[in-house]
């Protein structure tokens, strides 16, 4: 049998797991692993400028490809800098394996240099974690980590690797496990047959159904089944922020995103529905608004692979535990077999109602002679990229505007931090996507607050030539914070104004990238055209947008789903 050191085992196990890209930052406790990486020609390592960015890159790489993202960092601060990235992945159920160095086993607990209890610190935000106490533990820990991260409801897994365990001085027999079996971990994939029968009957009997599609559908690759079911039964479909792209954005049955900044028609359809069929969504507080007023007449059907997501916030009348893809296929098969159908007359009447709501055109906005509106920027981006770009975003107004005005065609095209709401996610995320798909256009839609939270990664872009487009919606303020302060805090703009935003064009040029400043609407389209034509350069477009623009629609706090502000002057419940 082949004899390898602990460090070599780490690298070989990753190779045998099929890992091609890894994101990380070296340091004292992982020098042996980095030495083994140096000698491997199968794994490409990307050196970031801050460990948080490594995790976001791996995370977005995973979101875009469906593969498991992989991170390698050193002990102490190297590991703790990953925590925000791990939380981000955990909240959105993204499979990651984070390998972190640790001080030698005989120093653990002694407050040694760069010691941090990474297993303890990360415990509440990982799916699972492993600590390797001998080199021989490594292959199985890595095998289990990838298995746990990628199956069931996916999530991040941390592996702690003390320095002595990696030592090149000691070699051990190496064999990568072919399979793994855990008696305490067996995710349910197919749905209970009786429940599926009942669910289908309820769906067919519904007069005002809504198909409510969340991020779980993208993770489960269930888009084909969703489209088929929706089209067969002529169901209105609404996507959560995380579910955008799971159902084609331009499809006539797509009634838009729902929730806090959802469309009028989506939120009213939900509120007035008699049946809500949730596929991989978790009735998050950004969707439901006041749970006591949530969808008063609706029967709730919920498919989720994670039993804890079912009936957590809203009681599910008809729960089904299983993979969205498998369960929907079971329903489609049963539909085919029974040749049953729903009452097209009542569905048509329901559509008449929905189309009436749609006619309100809630995403219409006023243009201005003097200012560029953020909505215009996203619509122009859609036009120039023909709707084909992978769009990553940071967190805030620009994120909501991108979600509202870029109708995503496909799953894995919209990459954002939905659950955690992590500012600083966008740029490293775009880089991770570009590494996964070098030939696809990748753009990071960002704000002047968010971009400065991981702007150091412009340097990583330079080192590896990762030609992403950065589209900055610059309103010289923390726009979403300011919007809330204007609406609910008497207009007192406490610390939401940035009066020292840098010259982003010069900053980009300092990193040998191309910077373009856009101040007027006529400069916008040519700038975007140029950015996507330059396929081998990072282009940073700094667009001065209207600083007073708010994101609408917006749900009224403590209201029901249908209670919304539609503009600065109009609200549905007034």
């Amino acid at each position, binding site marked *: 049998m082949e004899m390898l050191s602990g460090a070599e085992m780490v690298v070989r196990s990753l190779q045998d797991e099929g890992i091609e890209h890894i994101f990380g930052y070296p340091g004292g406790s992982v020098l042996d692993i980095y030495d083994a990486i140096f000698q491997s020609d199968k794994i490409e390592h990307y050196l970031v400028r801050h460990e948080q960015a490594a995790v976001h890159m791996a995370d977005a790489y995973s979101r875009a490809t469906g593969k498991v993202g992989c991170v390698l960092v050193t002990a102490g601060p190297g590991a703790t800098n990953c925590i925000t990235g791990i939380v981000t992945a955990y909240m959105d159920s993204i499979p990651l394996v984070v390998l972190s160095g640790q001080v030698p086993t005989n120093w653990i607990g002694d407050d040694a240099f760069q010691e941090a209890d990474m*297993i*303890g610190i990360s*415990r*509440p935000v990982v*799916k*699972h*974690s492993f*600590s390797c106490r001998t080199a021989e533990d490594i292959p199985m820990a890595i095998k289990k980590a990838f298995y*746990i991260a990628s199956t069931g409801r996916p999530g991040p897994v941390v592996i702690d690797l003390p320095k002595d365990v990696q030592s090149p001085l000691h070699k051990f027999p190496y064999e990568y496990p072919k399979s793994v079996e*855990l*008696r*305490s*971990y067996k995710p349910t994939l197919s749905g209970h047959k009786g429940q599926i029968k009942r669910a289908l009957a309820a769906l067919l009997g519904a007069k005002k159904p809504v198909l409510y599609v969340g991020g779980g559908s993208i993770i489960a690759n269930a888009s084909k089944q969703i489209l088929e079911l929706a089209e067969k039964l002529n169901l209105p479909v609404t996507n959560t922020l995380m579910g955008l792209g799971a159902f084609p954005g331009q499809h006539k049955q797509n009634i838009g995103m729902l929730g806090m900044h959802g469309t009028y028609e989506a939120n009213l359809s939900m509120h007035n529905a008699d049946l809500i069929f949730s596929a991989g969504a978790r009735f998050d507080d950004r969707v439901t608004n006041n749970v006591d007023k949530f969808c008063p007449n609706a029967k709730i059907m919920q498919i989720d692979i*994670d*039993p*804890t997501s079912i*009936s*957590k916030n809203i*009681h599910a009348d008809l729960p089904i535990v299983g993979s969205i893809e498998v369960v929907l296929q079971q329903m489609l098969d049963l539909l085919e077999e029974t040749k049953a159908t729903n009452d097209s007359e009542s569905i048509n009447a329901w559509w008449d109602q929905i189309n009436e709501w749609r006619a309100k055109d809630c995403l219409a906005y006023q243009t201005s002679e003097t200012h560029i509106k953020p909505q215009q920027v996203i619509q122009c981006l859609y036009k120039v990229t023909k709707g084909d770009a992978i769009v990553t975003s940071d967190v805030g107004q620009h994120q909501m505007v991108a979600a509202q005005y870029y109708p995503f065609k496909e799953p894995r095209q919209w990459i954002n931090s939905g659950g955690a709401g992590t500012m600083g996610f966008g740029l490293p995320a775009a880089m991770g996507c570009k590494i996964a798909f070098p030939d696809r256009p990748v753009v990071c839609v960002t704000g002047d607050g968010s971009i400065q939270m991981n702007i150091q990664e412009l340097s990583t872009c330079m080192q590896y030539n990762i030609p992403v487009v950065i589209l900055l919606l610059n309103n010289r303020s923390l726009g979403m914070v300011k919007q809330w302060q204007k609406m609910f805090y008497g207009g007192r703009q406490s610390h939401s104004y940035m009066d020292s935003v840098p010259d982003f064009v010069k900053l980009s040029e300092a990193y040998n990238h191309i910077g373009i400043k856009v101040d007027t609407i006529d400069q916008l389209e040519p700038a975007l055209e140029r950015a996507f034509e330059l396929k081998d350069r990072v282009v940073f477009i700094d667009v001065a947008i209207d600083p007073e623009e708010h994101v609408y629609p917006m749900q009224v706090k403590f209201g029901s789903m249908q209670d919304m502000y539609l503009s600065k002057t109009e609200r549905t419940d007034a």
Partner: protein
Amino acid sequence: MRSIISVLLENEPGALARVVGLFAQRAYNIESLTVSPTNDLTLSRMTITTEVDCKATLEQMMKQLHKLVDVLRVSELTEGAHVERELLLIKVRTSNNEDREEVKRTCDIYRGQIVDITQHLYTIQLTGAGVKLDAFIDTINNASEIVEVVRSGVCGIARGEKALRG
């Protein structure tokens, strides 16, 4: 409502911390927790007593426990017939013979055992449901001065055929 949850989990480092962390993280309350390896040394058995506001919270708590990768089985004991026991060790000080006799008598009534004595101190061992131990502590307090109390927390098991096995 009071609940007793039995958990069968991998006897691995960190498994206990994951359970305790879960309760803290999700703002669930733990009244007592006992844990020990079973006859199968690769497994630990845990009994958690908790106070929950409603059935939905209990359900969510059990699902969250089950979601932990190390956890094999989770079951609620108070819903069915069950046996629950707790061990009490209590050290009391007596000043005269009369009190010493009263301690001995109380101990007998409760079927406790005196496991250690010095000139003025008795150490008593008692098992039973929590309420019985509470009552004993109240009673013994009248005849003596309580020096030290240690309780194991609840161990529980279902009656009859029902079993929590790997």
